[in-house]
């Protein structure tokens, strides 16, 4: 009997949310409520607020209850360049379908379009964010989802501009299918662990498409980073998986497809690096496996500083790069194997698909340019070509041990399955019906 009572208690607890009436609040010019702040004030935990299309200039909106805040037909929340627009201080909040624009800008506080502070299980989806200082800002949060948002800023000076999606200190987040442009960094991660970034399109940001620091055990895949000021930076992290991304057209004196600084135990697999000043730049990186990537028409495909060790570069394709690999030292602690190099001129007598003579990807000219950057002015000079040939026969200046023992004879089929255009926020978001008993106020 006692046990049965306990079961009943459990059952009651499980069905409690179904039994309690959740309230639905409607906001709009011909709806019961006309302002979002009023609805937020009246709502209690578990309520749903529908905001219908219209133009709302209500200053800063504080969400302090676990509510579902849904925009129907993209209502505009305008901060008029004065303040932050939506601030979430509560867990279990969903914000979707809004057009958030014109946040203010301050030098002391990071004002954002949508900010989530010290909460969990918050979903920010299907929103448009325009001309905000920071787009979507999560601080000290766990288990949040940021997806299908379209965040666009206007380019101004780097120091006066925030990031598209900014997450500071968090765990288990998902950032997916967002479009980010015109900010300082498209996506900014600092102290964020066990998270996933997928299928985002981050382009034309002032600094980095993705900026990643002190964030361990994360996985980012199927993203596209295009024409950002300095490409993508992944720094001071370990166990990061970077797979099936595309890094392209990051041009500039210090622009990279990826900049890897003090990264350990990570896996870079099946990415495409095309037309970057440097495809991958590694500094202080250890135990990284770079495999099955495609390096196409970069200035430098791979720049490995001598501070890197125990990295493996294998099964990649190197095609049409001005320089394949360059390094600044003689010591070689990294291994290269079975890559395809379009400059390889060896032969394959036993027809096993790998060349019989090793390939040295660091050319003499790459060493010269590494030491004297202005040496680039002699690029494609016939003299340089002759010197490179001589050096290939008898290496003296180039690191002798840096070589691919078994280079592939033909380009490898890496079966790349890259970024697909994300499904952007749908235009009409209609109230779901059914499950919850609706009480219109």
């Amino acid at each position, binding site marked *: 009997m006692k046990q049965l009572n306990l079961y009943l208690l459990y059952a009651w607890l499980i069905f409690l949310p179904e039994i309690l009436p959740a309230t639905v609040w409607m906001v709009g010019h011909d709806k019961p409520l006309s302002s979002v702040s009023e609805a937020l004030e009246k709502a209690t935990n578990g309520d749903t607020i529908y905001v219908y299309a219209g133009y709302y200039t209500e200053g800063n909106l504080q969400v302090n209850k676990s509510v579902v805040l849904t925009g129907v037909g993209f209502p505009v929340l305008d901060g008029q360049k004065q303040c932050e627009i939506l601030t979430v201080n509560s867990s279990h909040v969903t914000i979707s379908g809004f057009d958030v624009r014109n946040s203010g800008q301050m030098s002391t506080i990071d004002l954002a379009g949508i900010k989530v502070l010290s909460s969990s299980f918050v979903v920010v989806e299907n929103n448009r964010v325009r001309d905000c200082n920071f787009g979507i800002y999560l601080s000290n949060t766990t288990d949040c989802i940021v997806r299908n948002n379209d965040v666009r800023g206007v380019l101004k000076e780097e120091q006066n501009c925030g990031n598209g999606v900014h997450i500071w200190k968090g765990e288990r987040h998902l950032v997916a299918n967002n479009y980010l442009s015109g900010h300082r960094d498209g996506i900014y991660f600092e102290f964020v662990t066990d998270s996933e970034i997928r299928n985002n399109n981050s382009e034309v940001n002032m600094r980095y498409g993705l900026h990643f620091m002190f964030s361990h055990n994360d996985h980012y895949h199927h993203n596209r980073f295009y024409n950002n000021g300095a490409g993508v930076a992944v720094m001071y992290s370990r166990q990061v998986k970077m797979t099936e991304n595309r890094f392209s057209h990051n*041009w500039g*004196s210090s622009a990279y497809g990826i900049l890897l600084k003090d990264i350990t135990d990570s896996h870079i697999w099946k990415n495409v690096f095309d037309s970057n*000043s440097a495809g991958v730049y590694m500094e202080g990186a250890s135990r990284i496996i770079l495999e099955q990537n495609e390096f196409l*028409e970069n200035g430098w495909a791979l720049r490995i500083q001598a501070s890197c060790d125990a990295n493996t570069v294998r099964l990649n394709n190197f095609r049409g790069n001005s320089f394949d690999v360059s390094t600044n030292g003689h010591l070689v602690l990294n291994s290269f194997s079975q890559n395809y190099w379009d400059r390889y001129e060896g032969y394959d007598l036993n027809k096993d698909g790998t060349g019989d003579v090793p390939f040295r990807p660091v050319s003499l000219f790459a060493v010269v340019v590494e030491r*004297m950057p*202005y040496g*680039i002015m002699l690029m*494609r000079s*016939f003299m340089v070509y002759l010197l490179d040939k001589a050096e290939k026969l008898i290496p003296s200046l180039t690191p002798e041990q840096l070589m691919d023992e078994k280079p592939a004879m033909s380009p490898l089929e890496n079966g790349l399955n890259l970024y697909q255009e994300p499904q952007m926020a749908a235009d009409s978001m209609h109230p779901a019906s059914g499950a919850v008993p609706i009480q219109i106020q």
Partner: protein
Amino acid sequence: MLRLIKYILLDIIQNRMVIGYTLFLLAVSLGLFSLNDDPTKGLVSLLNIALIVTPLVSIVFSTIHFYNSSEFIEMMAAQPLRRSLIVRAEFWSLSLALVTAVVIGMGIPIALYASTSTGLALLAVTVVLTVVFVSLAMYASVRTRDKAKGIGGVLLLWFLFALLYDAFVLLFMFMFSDYPLEKAVLAMVALNPIDLARVTVLLQLDMAALMGYTGALFREFLGTVNGIIFASAVLTVWSAVPVVAAVNVFNRKDL
């Protein structure tokens, strides 16, 4: 002058060498473009032809032609003609013939496969290099009477511009690598017509690599209108000065 140019041109065409050169350029360009799927790679290979072969053929052919027509030149000098006219006519007709060869031999394949700004830059640069090396040939062949010596000198000149100069620049860079050499190297590169031509095309080709700090300096200098004016000025000096010097020498020369 025009009549003189006409006679010289007829002589050049009869020689069939220029026609062979045209066909060679045509075959090489078409071959390079059809071997590479990517027209940009074809352009890169063609760049080497343009920087090495075109100057060599231009300078050697012009020198040989000048020596071979020494009897014609002597006869013309006996006519009531200004001496400078004779050298200038030689220069213009040789330039015209070789430039036509380049325009047909490289221009048509470029127009077919790679009619981009890079292709256009490559063609323009090759035409200018041709004129510069004809001009150099004029000076060298007027200076020496002996044909073998003349051709030897001319080969040395080509060797200097195409190979040795870059080796010197490289040596210079190594020797003074403790100093900021950006501007010095830029100046050195700008003074060699072949290097200047190469860099002009490079600015179109290897954008990604050249966008580094030096590349930026480079682009700032040569990529702007001022830079283009400067480059054109340098190349004009290179094509005009030797031929003017040749006229001066020829005017006072004991034939």
